């Protein structure tokens, strides 16, 4: 097959239909990634305009430009847009675009999930923007502290918009986390062992692990607060056994790792770009990997440092203060690795490098003020003042925006295939660098002089006027800088000349492909023999295009890429990926209707839409699979590998494992909430408990165990080829799961009034959660039964029975914990 014919066949095979239909059904990672990135930058512009309104208002004392109410919406939306609609989605879009190219594969593990995530992000973002347009935007601060965000103090729809809109958007973050975790683990080039993985792959892997564990507490907190606002369950109301501090714990359990979720991919860009322009490989690869993993862990031990002023005991504060200082060390390891790379190399100037230098300066300054506020006594002085605003902007702009701009200019020729022009870009860099420092350096002083955050105006004569004026001028310089970047991008896209392949002589895998990228990335897949392979991306690109790699010949109309063992990168399967589909868009639309129904309190619509989401999920899963048992197929170098439907450690299996980990984190946060309220909230013990009833919990437990036992037998029968027996056991698992669901529903109905005291609310929450898990387990079993009946399941194609066993196992484990948490208090306090 000639390279041109191979290109045409693969381009057609991996492409989407033309026109609107193609746009709406596309699942290709390059396309979805670019969509995420462009949308995120649009939201960045909107967030930036809101920042300009803030700076215009604060430029002088007593300004009447915005009133307090509007100012509340503007600063809340500025933070919300920048964090949830710009930073996180940009990280997702960047990883979506880059990961398969870095890892030498043709797409991510779950292409339809990428598309679904994008639609959720877009629709959720539009809900928030629509609220802003009609003057009903959230106005209780981007971290929505209770009781300000609770119903009595925020009676309008504003806080509901935040809770539901952001949760809708966060679905895309969880989807991305599951997809990236699985992709880095399984979907790599042959031979790409852990030590040969590009450093950016490690960064994105650790980031996605943090997203997997970081977002569930926020999603849980948002659900609980929305339930409190909509139905009066007092989780955060201290007069009825709730506690506003629970919100702060749940929010910052997410919120602090969030800072690192944003920072790590940006640091990954620096670790990729800097060595290219320093002319030598990154110093201390293994040290950097270790520091990333350590950062991933440590960042979950810092959340209370946002709560130093809430009155926790000294020792608690000291524990978190110690951990907050500790996290400097792995960050410093990276900074020293970068400096050593610069010192050991021969750095050449380029626009991406200017942004890297800007990053080093601004981020280190922000890091140093971070060490200051990690010390409790200093934090009490600076808490809730503009000093903290200055610190967080130095960290986030220095640690995220500068590296992102470095990455933008570095990979722009990759996405467009055109040369960048430094002249305008350099002017933009200096405007941004000057603007950041002019805006935020004086803000440290306004903060130290006592100016609080989130005030819409201030009196003259406090010594704040001059500093604020300088900050506002700086803010506008900063905006001019970003406007220059935008102009530069437009000029680039319209008028730039064609760039050669690998214009920076990076010699890394993502440049060993045509630019702009094709639908399929690599015409044949590379075999990696050492890290930083290849040294000559152009030569490798030509060899791969000529078919001197793996899976070079398209066959059966399959979209194929290689799956590997996690550690050593040995191929262990051929992954067959799905093509363009309406399902992601339709599922996201149905999900959107669920959220809109909740927002406007039309719960019947939400329930109907939820049923549609379940139907979509069923159809989604049914689109895949093989009717015949697969046989190993040649990879192209003499080796054979089984198509993934016949492999146990397939991406689908790992996707389920990671989904369960995220689900378990949400559940652990819920249990933490119950224990926290019981121990720390005022008004406990509650006036009434569940009746000390022995039969109901025992019957529920029996149903849980029966479900998992049936699922285990179903899986085992299927493995030895007894299809009829397997189907009987799977049907049994479905019924037993349904019985367990009923047990938990009855428990929730037996709870003392959930409106009267938070105890009743927690009983309903725990019971409801476990009922939902068993109900999903029932659906899994039913789906496996149905697929087996129609011939999609066999001893070799065993994904459905195995997934049923895994889910019912999780439902049984978490359900047992719920039973203990629910019934131990009434049993132990019974006379």
């Amino acid at each position, binding site marked *: 097959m000639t390279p041109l014919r191979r290109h045409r066949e693969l381009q057609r095979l991996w492409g989407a239909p033309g026109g609107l239909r193609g746009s709406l059904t596309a699942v290709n990672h390059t396309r979805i990634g670019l969509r995420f990135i462009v949308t995120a930058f649009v939201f960045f512009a909107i967030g930036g305009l809101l920042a300009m309104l803030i700076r215009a208002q604060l430029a002088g004392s007593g300004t009447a430009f915005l009133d307090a109410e509007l100012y509340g919406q503007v600063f809340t939306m500025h933070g919300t847009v920048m964090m949830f609609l710009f930073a996180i989605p940009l990280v997702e879009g960047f990883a979506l675009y880059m990961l398969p190219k870095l890892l030498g594969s043709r797409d991510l593990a779950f292409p339809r999930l990428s598309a679904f995530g994008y639609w959720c992000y877009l629709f959720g973002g539009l809900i928030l923007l629509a609220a802003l347009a009609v003057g009903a935007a959230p106005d209780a601060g981007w971290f929505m502290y209770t009781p300000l965000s609770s119903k009595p103090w925020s009676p309008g729809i504003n806080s509901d918009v935040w809770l539901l809109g952001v949760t809708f958007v966060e679905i895309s973050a969880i989807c991305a986390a599951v997809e990236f975790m699985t992709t880095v683990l399984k979907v790599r080039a042959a031979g790409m062992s852990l030590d040969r993985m590009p450093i950016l792959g490690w960064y994105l892997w650790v980031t996605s692990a943090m997203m997997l564990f970081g977002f569930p507490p926020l999603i849980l907190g948002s659900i609980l607060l929305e339930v409190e606002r909509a139905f009066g369950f007092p989780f955060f109301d201290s007069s009825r056994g709730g506690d506003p501090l629970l919100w702060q714990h749940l929010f910052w359990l997410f919120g602090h790792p969030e800072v690192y979720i944003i920072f790590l991919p940006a640091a990954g860009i620096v670790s990729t770009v800097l060595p290219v322009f320093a002319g030598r490989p990154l110093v201390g690869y293994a040290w950097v990997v*270790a520091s990333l*993993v350590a950062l991933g862990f440590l960042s979950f*031990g810092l959340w209370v440092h946002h709560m130093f002023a809430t009155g926790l005991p000294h020792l608690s504060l000291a524990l978190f203060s110690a951990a907050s200082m500790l996290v400097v060390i792995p960050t410093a390891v990276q900074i020293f690795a970068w400096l050593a790379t610069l010192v050991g190399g021969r750095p050449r100037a380029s626009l991406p490098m200017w942004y890297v230098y800007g990053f080093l300066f601004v981020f280190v300054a922000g890091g140093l003020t971070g060490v200051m506020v990690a010390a409790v006594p200093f934090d009490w002085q600076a808490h809730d003042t503009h000093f903290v605003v200055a610190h967080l902007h130095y960290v986030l702009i220095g640690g995220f925006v500068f590296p992102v701009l470095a990455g933008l200019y570095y990979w722009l020729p990759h996405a467009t295939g055109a040369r960048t022009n430094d002249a305008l870009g350099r002017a933009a860099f200096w405007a941004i660098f000057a603007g950041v420092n002019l805006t935020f350096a004086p803000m440290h002083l306004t903060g130290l002089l006592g100016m*609080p955050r989130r005030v819409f105006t201030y009196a003259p004569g406090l*010594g704040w006027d001059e500093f604020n004026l300088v900050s506002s001028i700086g803010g506008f310089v900063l905006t001019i800088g970003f406007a220059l970047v935008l102009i530069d991008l437009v000029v680039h896209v319209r008028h730039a000349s064609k760039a050669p392949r690998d214009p920076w002589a990076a010699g890394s895998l993502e440049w060993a492909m045509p630019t702009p990228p094709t639908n399929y990335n690599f015409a044949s897949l590379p075999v990696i023999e050492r890290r930083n392979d290849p040294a000559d991306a152009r030569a490798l690109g030509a060899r791969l295009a000529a078919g001197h790699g793996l899976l070079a010949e398209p066959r059966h109309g399959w979209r194929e890429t290689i799956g590997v063992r996690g550690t050593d990168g040995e191929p262990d399967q051929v992954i067959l990926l799905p093509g363009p589909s309406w399902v992601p868009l339709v599922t996201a639309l149905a999900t959107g209707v669920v959220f809109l129904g909740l927002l406007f309190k039309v719960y019947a619509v939400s329930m109907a839409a939820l049923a549609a989401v379940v139907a979509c999920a069923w159809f989604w899963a049914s689109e895949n699979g093989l009717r015949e048992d697969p046989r190993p197929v040649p990879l192209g170098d003499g080796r054979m590998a089984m198509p993934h439907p016949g492999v146990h450690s397939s991406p689908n299996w790992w996707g389920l494992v990671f989904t369960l980990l995220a689900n378990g984190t949400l559940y652990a946060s819920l249990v933490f909430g119950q224990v926290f309220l019981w121990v720390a909230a005022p008004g406990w013990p509650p006036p009434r408990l569940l009746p000390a009833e022995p039969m109901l919990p025992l019957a529920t437990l029996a149903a849980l165990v029966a479900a998992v036992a049936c699922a285990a037998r179903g899986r085992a029968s299927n493995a030895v080829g007894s299809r009829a027996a397997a189907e009987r056991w799977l049907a049994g698992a479905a019924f037993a799961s349904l019985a367990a669901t009923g047990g938990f529903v009855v428990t929730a109905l037996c709870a003392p009034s959930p409106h009267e005291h938070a105890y009743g609310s927690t009983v309903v929450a725990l019971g409801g959660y476990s009922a939902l898990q068993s109900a999903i387990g029932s659906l899994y079993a039913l789906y496996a039964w149905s697929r087996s009946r129609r011939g999609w399941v066999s001893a070799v194609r065993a994904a459905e029975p195995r997934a049923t066993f895994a889910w019912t196992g999780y439902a049984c484990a978490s359900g047992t914990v719920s039973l203990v948490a629910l019934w131990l208090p009434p049993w132990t306090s019974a006379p």
Partner: protein
Amino acid sequence: MTAPPRERRWSLASAAPLSAAALLGGQLVWSMAFVMLYGLHALACALVAGDSAWLRLALGAVWLAHVAVGIVLVEWLRRRARGAGDGTRRFVAQVAVTLAATGSFATAWTGLPLLLTRACEPPPRVEMGSAHGIARLAP
């Protein structure tokens, strides 16, 4: 029709002698120490009013036990790393030892406040918004 040969479940195991648990072990020890110290402390201070020497002793014991486990883990991993050969195994072994060592250090560092403060003492009351808006400790 037969089932496919059973594969190794978690492929880090294929980089024997180190497993995933070994790779992340040091950090898991730190996480466990952190959760135990923070959780036990919060529970004890809420349920048992006032400071007690026993509480500090118990927290100290939890802390030192985790430090000890961390040190044992470092030593065990170091020995196994010697036989790890080259390439991927050596890399995984090196990273595991580094993570275990940093995890042990983190465990030791995080617990140091136990030596410095009383267990359940509430923080002083802070007044915000004085003349210059600077927080002051209430007398």
